[in-house]
């Protein structure tokens, strides 16, 4: 919520003035309203209290706190706030409009217009004619002179009157608050923060209600005794149910464990069965394979042996075939050479006769040579003829070892040797291959057999694990059984108890409805009593934390290690965790006290978690140059929808303004026009133009 409009008519120095506030944003939530002393800052602040809450707001206004509640003091106070030169026929009027922001977009706009009427002699009109309140909630309008019901409406749609001091306050007020802090201040804080005032009032109201109700319900004692007995039985039933629930929970957990174990066991059993099957199957098959392989190996070896025996000669011949064939070839070459030599020698003379005819006279070519030369030439021809067969083929034998085999016979023998050689080696090769394969198969089956023979060890391990699972499952079943027995017994007890409870409830049911209400009211009263006792210390601790946090943001370094304490019945003090002696806050300097007051108000505003505008009149007061920026920063950084700071020219100076300018949404300057004797609101203007 933010204050979107404030209209003041005949209100102190404001004759007819309007503040139109822009919608703040998350980054720009600060509104600065500048006014010199006496120009209308405090009148602005007071208009919020009285405009919203009328006589219920008066107790929070500076200078009026000690004024007794009541109609007459209120009328006198309003007369003081009425503009002295107001025309008698014009009422004094305060009109406030609160508009939701994104943070509370489900709320509706609330406009409160409060008018106070005066007589021609400017005296408050008598009775109900004095004051009128008009409330707009969204589109609905309520105009009431029944101020109490309007108060309810305003509090319902905005906030309770008693939280306003945490949000609308002036610096002096904050400074003075410390002096009245102590027990009273804390109590008020607790009331504001946690609604304990309501709890206390309700407690008292319930006590009165019970007194009246008991007397109407035919005697407190009988109802109370039966109710106490019922309470006792119900408590016992709760305990039994809790115990049963616990046991059932444990059993459920055990069942899950057992299921898990069962699953594991099933897997294991399956694995074991599979392995057992595999073992049995593998062993049989592999052993058969192994026997077969062994037999095959033996057969192959025998076959090789037989073949060697059968083909012994052939094999021997086969083995000798190559050298024999080589020998036959060499002797064939020798035979051929000898044939060539004999042939050449046989034709030698005839050749020589052709070459050198005899007698020399018949030789026209060489006939004229001398006998000696002719003999030499003839010898040369003879030598030349020897070259036909000399030298013999190097592969030719030099003699005949197999001289009995010649010619065609030799060719047949070579052919036979080739046949025997081919026949024997093929068979032997096939048998050798068979033997090799049989040996490999034998080795393979032997290895497989050894592997399978190791399996029983793994199977034993599986059996051991299975045994453990069975033991665990057994334990789980025992636990489940024990619990089920206990649950059965407890349920039997519960049944008996329910019968007794039913009896008491029947008895109570026969009582008047008022007595049942009384029983509930008694219990509520107990809750409220304990709540009252226990909320206060809890609240006190929380408040100390929040006040300390806000105070340390403003205070100087001396308080860095400080912690604010708000002792019940005593004045607030600051304690240090570095051994420094603690100090009473009332002994601090003026602005230090004001810092505490501001911190206290901010803490309350923060803890109440209400999205209400924060309005502070002259927060900086007599702060020095170091305190000013810190205080201003603490205020402007505060997480609220709208922060309105009322200030004079010496407070938020130009340099301070520079520091917060980015957060400022809007500025106003209020100036008192001496000629017209009224305060004039100038939007978007501030000190120094």
């Amino acid at each position: 919520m933010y204050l979107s409009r404030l209209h003041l008519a005949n209100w102190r120095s404001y004759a007819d003035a309007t503040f139109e506030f822009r919608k703040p944003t998350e980054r720009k939530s600060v509104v600065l309203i500048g006014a010199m002393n006496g120009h209308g800052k405090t009148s602005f602040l007071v208009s919020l209290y009285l405009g919203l809450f009328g006589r219920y707001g008066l107790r929070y206004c500076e200078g009026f706190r000690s004024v007794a509640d009541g109609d007459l003091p209120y009328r006198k106070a309003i007369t003081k706030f009425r503009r002295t030169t107001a025309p008698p026929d014009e009422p004094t009027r305060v009109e406030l409009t609160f508009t939701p922001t994104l943070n509370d977009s489900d709320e509706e706009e609330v406009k409160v217009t409060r008018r106070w009427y005066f007589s021609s002699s400017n005296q408050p009109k008598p009775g109900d004619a004095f004051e009128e309140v008009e409330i707009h909630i969204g589109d609905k309008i309520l105009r009431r002179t029944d101020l109490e019901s309007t108060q309810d409406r305003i509090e319902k749609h905005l906030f309770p009157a008693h939280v306003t001091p945490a949000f609308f306050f002036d610096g002096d007020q904050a400074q003075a608050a410390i002096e009245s802090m102590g027990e009273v201040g804390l109590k008020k804080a607790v009331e504001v923060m946690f609604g304990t005032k309501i709890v206390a009032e309700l407690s008292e109201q319930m006590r009165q209600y019970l007194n009246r109700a008991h007397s109407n319900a035919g005697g407190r004692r009988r109802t109370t005794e039966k109710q106490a007995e019922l309470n006792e039985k119900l408590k016992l039933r709760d305990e039994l149910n809790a115990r049963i629930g616990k046991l059932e929970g444990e059993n459920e957990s055990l069942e899950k464990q057992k299921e898990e174990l069962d699953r594991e066991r099933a897997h294991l059993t399956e694995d074991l069965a599979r392995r057992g099957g595999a073992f049995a199957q593998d062993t049989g098959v592999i052993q058969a394979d192994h026997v077969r392989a062994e037999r095959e190996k033996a057969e192959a070896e025998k076959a090789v042996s037989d073949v060697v025996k059968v083909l012994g000669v052939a094999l021997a011949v086969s083995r000798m075939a190559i050298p024999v064939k080589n020998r036959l070839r060499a002797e064939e070459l020798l035979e051929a050479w000898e044939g060539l030599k004999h042939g050449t020698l046989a034709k030698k003379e005839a050749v020589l006769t052709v070459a050198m005819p005899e007698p020399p006279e018949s030789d026209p070519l060489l006939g004229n040579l001398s006998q000696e030369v002719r003999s030499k030439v003839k010898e040369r021809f003879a030598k030349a003829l020897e070259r036909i067969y000399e030298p013999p083929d190097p592969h030719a034998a030099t003699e005949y070892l197999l001289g009995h085999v010649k010619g065609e016979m030799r060719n047949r023998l070579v052919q036979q040797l080739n046949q025997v050689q081919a026949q024997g080696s093929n068979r032997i090769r096939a048998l050798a291959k068979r033997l090799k394969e049989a040996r490999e198969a034998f080795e393979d089956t032997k290895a497989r057999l050894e592997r399978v023979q190791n399996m029983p060890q793994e199977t034993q391990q599986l059996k051991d694990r299975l045994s453990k699972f069975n033991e665990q499952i057994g334990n789980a079943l025992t636990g489940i059984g024990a619990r089920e027995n206990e649950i059965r017994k407890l349920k039997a007890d519960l049944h008996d108890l329910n019968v007794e409870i039913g009896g008491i409830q029947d008895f109570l049911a026969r009582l008047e409805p008022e007595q049942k209400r009384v029983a509930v009211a008694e219990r509520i009263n107990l809750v409220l009593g304990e709540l009252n006792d226990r909320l206060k210390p809890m609240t006190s601790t929380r408040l100390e934390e929040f006040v300390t946090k806000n105070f340390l943001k403003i205070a100087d370094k001396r308080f860095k290690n400080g912690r604010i304490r708000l002792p019940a019945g005593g004045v607030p003090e600051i304690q240090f965790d570095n051994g420094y002696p603690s100090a009473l806050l009332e002994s601090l300097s003026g602005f230090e006290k004001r810092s505490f007051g501001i911190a206290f108000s901010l803490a309350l505003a923060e803890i109440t978690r209400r999205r209400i505008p924060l309005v502070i009149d002259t927060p900086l007061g007599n702060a020095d140059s170091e305190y000013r920026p810190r205080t201003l920063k603490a205020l402007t950084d505060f997480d609220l929808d709208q922060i309105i700071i009322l200030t004079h020219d010496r407070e938020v100076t130009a340099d301070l303004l520079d520091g917060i300018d980015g957060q400022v949404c809007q500025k106003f300057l209020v100036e008192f026009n001496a000629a017209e004797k009224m305060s004039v609101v100038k939007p978007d203007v501030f000190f120094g133009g």
Partner: protein
Amino acid sequence: MKSPPCFDDLESKKLIQDLCEEHRVDIALLKDLCELMQQHSGSGRKEGIDAEIAGCVDRFLSRKPNL
């Protein structure tokens, strides 16, 4: 009318819940009664409050018929 802040604060809410549980009332009844008191608070007007308290208790009893 909103409930008092102690019903929203985590720590105090837990305390209230525990106390309500201990004394077998529900937090809604306590809230109803607190809101009732807030409506009557400060104004001094308490006429008819007993009937309103009885109404709150009756609503509680209709929510918890076994109590």
